[in-house]
């Protein structure tokens, strides 16, 4: 296999990149949607926080491959179903974000919250207009870590036959060539960088006060 293999297979690499993107973004988004209410609950109820953060912390220690293999038995999916990947990565995402969100909400200065209440903001208004926006900067940092980490974990799914950029690694292994591996690695790297940059840019747009303070 020669280097010309890469330009000849650009279409295939692009397809794999798209499924990789899909397998990364979907659990990240679902995880975010789940983590926000859970993190909020954890922030307001310290006992629940221990359970939620502790519980998800333990789930996070389960190796991804083990989780991919175990999940079908637990949720009744087929072993080759991409849903397994989505569910596993969603768990990792929630595990990372729930703590970030709880800590972020708790880091809002009490004096700011009290001022908001004293001015006449109701509890819900205070949460959505003051507390949640002020927790955005740590949340965005957390999201950047999560998305990059998810890009990397998705590759492991190749070992159970779900095609994405990780499939290039297994291909390189079976054909004893490092060329597909280099291609997969490069594509993963670019994908991670692009997603990280995208979230950072959106984050900057959403939190203009952070730069003003700098």
């Amino acid at each position, binding site marked *: 296999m020669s280097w010309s293999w890469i330009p000849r297979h650009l279409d295939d690499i692009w397809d794999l990149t798209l499924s990789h993107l899909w397998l990364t973004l979907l659990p990240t988004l679902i995880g975010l949607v789940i983590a926000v209410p859970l993190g909020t609950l954890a922030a307001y109820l310290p006992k629940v926080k221990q359970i939620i953060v502790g519980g998800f912390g333990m789930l996070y220690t389960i190796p991804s491959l083990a989780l991919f293999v175990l999940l079908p038995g637990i949720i009744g999916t087929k072993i080759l179903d991409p849903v397994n990947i989505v569910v596993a990565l969603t768990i990792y995402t929630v595990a990372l974000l729930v703590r970030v969100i709880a800590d972020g909400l708790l880091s809002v200065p009490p004096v700011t919250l009290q001022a908001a*209440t004293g001015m006449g903001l109701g509890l819900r208004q205070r949460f959505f207009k003051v507390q949640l926006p002020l927790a955005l900067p740590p949340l965005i940092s957390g999201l950047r870590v999560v998305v990059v980490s998810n890009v990397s974990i998705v590759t492991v799914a190749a070992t159970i036959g779900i095609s994405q950029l990780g499939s290039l690694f297994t291909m390189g292994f079976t054909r004893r060539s490092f060329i597909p591996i280099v291609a997969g690695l490069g594509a993963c790297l670019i994908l991670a960088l692009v997603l990280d940059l995208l979230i950072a840019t959106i984050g900057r747009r959403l939190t203009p006060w952070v730069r003003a303070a700098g």
Partner: protein
Amino acid sequence: MIELQHVTKRYPDGTEAVKDLSFTAPTGQITALVGPSGCGKTTTLRMINRLIEPTEGTILLDGDDVTRQDKVALRRRIGYVIQSAGLMPHKRVLANITTVPRLMGVKKAECEARARELLDLVGLDQSFADRFPAQLSGGQSQRVGVARALAADPPFMLMDEPFSAVDPIVRQQLQQEFLALQKRVAKTIVLVTHDIAEALLLGDQIVVLGQAAAIEQQGTPYELLSNPANEFVSDFLGRSRGYQALGFEQAGDLPLQPGPVVRASDLGRADPRRWTLILDDGGRPAGWQRGTEHRAAIAAIRFPAESLRVCLDSALAGPSGLGVAVDADGVFRGTFRLGDVLAQAAFDSQPWEGPQ
């Protein structure tokens, strides 16, 4: 009018932060609650807007019991200014100011026009409108805090140590400007401070609180200074209360004398052995001169003077015990003697002739 009737705040462990407190904050006036830290003054303030619920007693706003009102609606009728302003860090100045009116459904354009007026009112340039709180100095933040409290034009205002987080020079400026502002808006204000000087300056009425918000004395600044009810109050007023009381004494017919004064162009005609006031071409005091000695600083006061204290200060600040009086345009009107100021301050004191 804000009325507190037998208000008590008792915590579950039995400690009483406020015990059976009653006072009335009259409409359109500033009532200053002053006392040492931990005396329950902030607790008292927060019971008025129900950030803390009273255990016993009644609090009435213009006759309406606060506990019978929706908390959120109640708070929107009460401007709230706190130490360090408590601005929303993620919102620009204009958005901070318009928060409450926006929540109350006032149109955005209308809110912003009003907010820009408020910026003028609190002495901030329009260029601050788009800044974030992190880009403001302490004094500027506090001005925005006051503007924000006024945004929904509430009849009442609660102020908790509003000027204590800024340096003394800015504080003095903010206090003076706030007094001028209050003359225009005439809100019913309860202000909490640990700084007796602030209470004396801002309060129409002062309530001095001791432990568990027990009232040690209630009265006008002059009443407190001239007749402190007990040792607690006189200790709290501090050592210069006699001097401060002069700030509330009217300067009556202080006799003015037309000299010693000389035009800058006639400097040669000044007596080299005594301090002479030099006037510039416009007739404004420009300094004191004695022979080759010169003092540029003049503690001139507008005449008629606002109080005996400023007269006393002017006379003491001059090199020869003479105070300088000017008119509204700063033009020299005359000098007055330290002795005459003291004579006015001496009330009816007479020399003691010994035991009869």
